[in-house]
């Protein structure tokens, strides 16, 4: 019992204590406690049966009506599902575009490609589609190469797609050749890095690729220039040593305008025969350090027409009659040795690097697999013309076709 004034905490504690002790507060002197007691003793309103029945009826109707209303909780999952679907349809294809085998989204990428394949005949976009797929596989192989792995299947699949390209109309030759050179770069680099166990087979696969048929053998812009500038030079070498004295391993050393000395070990005939002494294809340019007009395979027999002033460039004529300039160190006078450890050149195997990019005068673009990929036979004396091999982690300096460091950035049409 207390009559003393209590603050709100004391009052609360006091009432709690009374409740815990089941003590009656009826005779407590504290007026607040007395009021609390009166409230506790107040009679509770009772629900009559009639009132209850009326309330029951109204609530029952509400329950029945509720059944016809879709619970609002279903709307949120539906909205969430729609949002997820939109994200999947829009973002996943974009994100999966740069995926390579082994990546999480690579399966999605292939699934999307299936849809592209199915739709291409309907949309009449087969040529572009096959070229795109070939480029993607080549890019993937390049990315994997940068990661230190080589996947033969990607090379084969890319070539298969290129094969489809050749059988369609409206072929973009330049892009097809770019893809092909990327594949060559990957294969040769993998060989150099000992990532490719079956180097010869892969080289044969590449050499047999139908993409070769896409490459024109005679660039139309080459002949006039060559004829005008080189004809006097080639006619200025009337004497030479007999042809049998020339060995296959001798490298040509030609003065430009001075007749070749008879005492020289290497004597240039006006139309001396020689061959390409390299382990990969070599660029043929419209003029010394000029634009690339075609490429020539190793061991291809050529006619030597002349050389420039300092003798660093040789004018040659290819078996198909086309002419151009080539770095002197890749030319050897004589017959090509047989057999060859590299892929065997054949007639019509000269690849022309006339992609759009490499047609630009002065473009530093090596169109196809050329000695720059193969460090064994490339002294770094003509770095402008034939850059040395680079590790695959930094391909833009090394590959003959300048394969993109990040193919996804450079991929046409996705």
């Amino acid at each position, binding site marked *: 019992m207390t*009559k*003393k*004034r*209590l*603050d*709100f*905490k004391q*009052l*609360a504690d006091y009432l*709690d204590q009374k409740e815990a002790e089941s003590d009656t507060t009826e005779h407590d*002197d*504290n*007026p*607040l406690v*007395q*009021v*609390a007691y*009166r*409230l*506790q003793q*107040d*009679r*509770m*309103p*009772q*629900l*009559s049966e009639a*009132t*209850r029945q*009326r*309330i029951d009826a*109204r*609530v029952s109707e*509400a*329950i*029945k009506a*509720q*059944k016809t*209303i879709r*619970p*609002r*909780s279903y709307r949120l999952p539906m909205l969430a599902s729609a949002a997820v679907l939109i994200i999947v349809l829009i973002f996943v294809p974009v994100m999966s575009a740069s995926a390579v085998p082994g990546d999480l989204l690579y399966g999605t990428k292939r699934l999307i490609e299936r849809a592209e394949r199915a739709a291409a005949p309907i949309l009449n976009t087969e040529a572009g589609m096959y070229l795109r797929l070939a480029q993607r596989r080549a890019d993937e192989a390049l990315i994997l190469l940068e990661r230190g792995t080589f996947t033969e299947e990607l090379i084969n699949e890319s070539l298969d797609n290129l094969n489809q390209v050749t059988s369609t109309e409206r072929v973009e030759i330049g892009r097809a050749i770019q893809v092909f050179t990327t594949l060559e770069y990957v294969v040769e680099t993998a060989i150099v890095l000992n990532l490719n166990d079956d180097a010869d087979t892969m080289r044969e696969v590449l050499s047999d690729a139908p993409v070769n048929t896409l490459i024109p053998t005679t660039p139309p812009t080459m002949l006039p220039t060559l004829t005008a500038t080189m004809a006097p030079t080639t006619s200025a070498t009337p004497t030479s040593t007999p042809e049998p004295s020339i060995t296959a391993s001798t490298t040509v050393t030609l003065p430009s305008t001075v007749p070749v000395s008879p005492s020289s070990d290497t004597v240039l005939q006006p139309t001396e025969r020689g061959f390409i002494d390299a382990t990969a294809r070599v660029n043929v340019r419209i003029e010394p350090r000029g634009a690339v007009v075609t490429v020539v395979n190793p061991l291809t027999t050529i006619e030597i027409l002349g050389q420039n002033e300092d003798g660093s460039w040789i004018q040659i004529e290819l078996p198909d009659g086309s002419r151009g300039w080539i770095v002197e160190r890749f030319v050897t006078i004589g017959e090509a040795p047989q057999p060859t450890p590299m892929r065997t050149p054949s007639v019509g195997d000269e690849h022309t690097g006339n992609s759009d990019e490499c047609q630009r005068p002065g473009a530093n673009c090596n169109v196809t697999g050329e000695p720059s990929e193969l460090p064994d036979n490339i002294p770094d004396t003509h770095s402008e013309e034939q850059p040395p091999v680079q590790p695959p982690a930094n391909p833009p300096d090394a590959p003959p076709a300048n394969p993109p460091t990040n193919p996804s950035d450079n991929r046409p049409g996705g």
Partner: protein
Amino acid sequence: MEITQRTIQQAQQGNSKAISQIYETYLQRIYRYVAYRVNDERDIEDITAEVFIKMIEALPSYQITGAPFEAWLYRIAYSRIIDMRRKRTRHPQEDLPERMASEQPTPEQNVLDEQADHELRSAFSSLKEDDQNVLYLRFVEGKTHKEVAKIVNKSVTAVKATQHRALTRLANLLGQEKMRHYFRGDHD
């Protein structure tokens, strides 16, 4: 008896059995809560029914937070009472419920008690809504400070402070003379 979370979830999915179970569990409590603060029998019935109809409509969006389910029902009832009072400008002391007399017959000697009840309800009705809420839940429904705090969504300290203020005001209304002595600290 309290309702389980499972029952609430079933009710949210439109299970009429679960809804009925909730209704049965809380009908008396909500009715008493409304009846203690509203005088008109018809208003009490309407508000009680509306509380459960509103509950059924809003159940799908009800979020289970761990707070007692009845707290939600009390809040619905509270807002309905406020709405009703806004609509009607009737003075609360005008008509004390006849149901108290009819439903619970008063013994012959309880005329004084009835007058006391009338006085108490009258004073109670003049309190602020929040004060009425706390005093009703604390002393009529017999809930602890903590339970009341959860229902009215306030801290326990705030409930204790409200309780003190409301009891003081009620005591003042019921016996002003006595309260003057109390607040002066006079002792017998």
